[in-house]
């Protein structure tokens, strides 16, 4: 999953690819899939905490975007447009899945504990708990799942993916104030869940 800021994506290059794709060039749309599938998958994965659901939903998002491409007029960037499709589809999916088990510990990514960057960052975040990455990852997932879907969406986009407030407000079609407010309450709730790793 890319952690690059959203505004690093060249809108002009996207515009050219979109125009070609609208004229029937499937390879141009394939390039858009290559460019945006890691970020979209990341957003959906952190929202659903389920790899299979994230894969299927991301496929559905690109399918819908491909089908709807003729209606894309470029009033927003392609990035904002496809992220809005992805967020809406994911939030709708989560509403339907509300009563089902959202995730299980079996879905935890066991390889993450061997990731050097993860180990370094975990150490920087909290040296005392460096050795217990598995417990930390479990707690992080539990904390994320404790949030409402709307709060998890802003935490995913802002804290994990580094998308600016203004961009999130366009994607979610809410004011920047709402984005900041949701982040404030989400952080407060997360703090309660992760207290043992913060003190």
């Amino acid at each position, binding site marked *: 999953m890319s952690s690059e800021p959203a505004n690093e994506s060249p809108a002009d290059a996207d515009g050219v690819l979109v125009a070609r794709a609208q004229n029937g060039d499937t390879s141009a749309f394939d390039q858009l899939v290559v460019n945006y599938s890691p970020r979209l998958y990341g957003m959906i994965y952190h929202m659903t905490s389920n790899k299979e659901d994230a894969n299927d939903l991301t496929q559905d998002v690109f*399918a819908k975007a491909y089908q709807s491409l003729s209606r894309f007029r470029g009033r927003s960037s392609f990035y904002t447009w496809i992220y809005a499709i992805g967020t809406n589809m994911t939030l709708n999916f989560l509403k339907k899945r509300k009563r089902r088990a959202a995730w299980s510990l079996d879905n935890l990514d066991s390889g993450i504990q061997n990731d050097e960057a993860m180990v370094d960052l975990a150490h920087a975040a909290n040296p005392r708990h460096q050795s217990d990455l598995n417990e930390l990852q479990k707690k992080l997932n539990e904390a994320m799942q404790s949030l409402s879907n709307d709060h998890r969406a802003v935490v995913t986009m802002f804290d994990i993916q580094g998308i600016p407030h203004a961009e999130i407000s366009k994607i979610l079609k809410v004011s920047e104030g709402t984005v900041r407010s949701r982040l404030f309450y989400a952080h407060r709730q997360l703090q309660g869940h992760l207290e043992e790793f913060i003190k």
Partner: protein
Amino acid sequence: MNEPETQVQKLIRLKRFEEPRDGYFEDFLEEFRSRRDEGETSKGFLNSRVSGGRDNGKWFVGAGVAYAALLVVVLMWPNGPEAKPDASRQPIIFEPKQPVRNPVTPPKVPISIPGP
């Protein structure tokens, strides 16, 4: 933003390292291409991966119930197309001109009660 919130954000940012296996996104593109190719021949590209199965299940159940209901209505309908009388095939019914007395009805005989 106060210190604990910064710590929370640092911890949450660790989740960005939860990545799929190597080669996942190459496979993802291949999957997308084959879905699109299939969809362009069968017009089924928009069938949802996530909800498609469940929607199809609902559709089959609904269709089954509707068919059963239609069948019941057709079978039970008294003046349905199949129940419409065909004049040439009607049986001949002889109706008696005089009403038939009910043989079960006892004759009206005055009842005499013997005296003591």
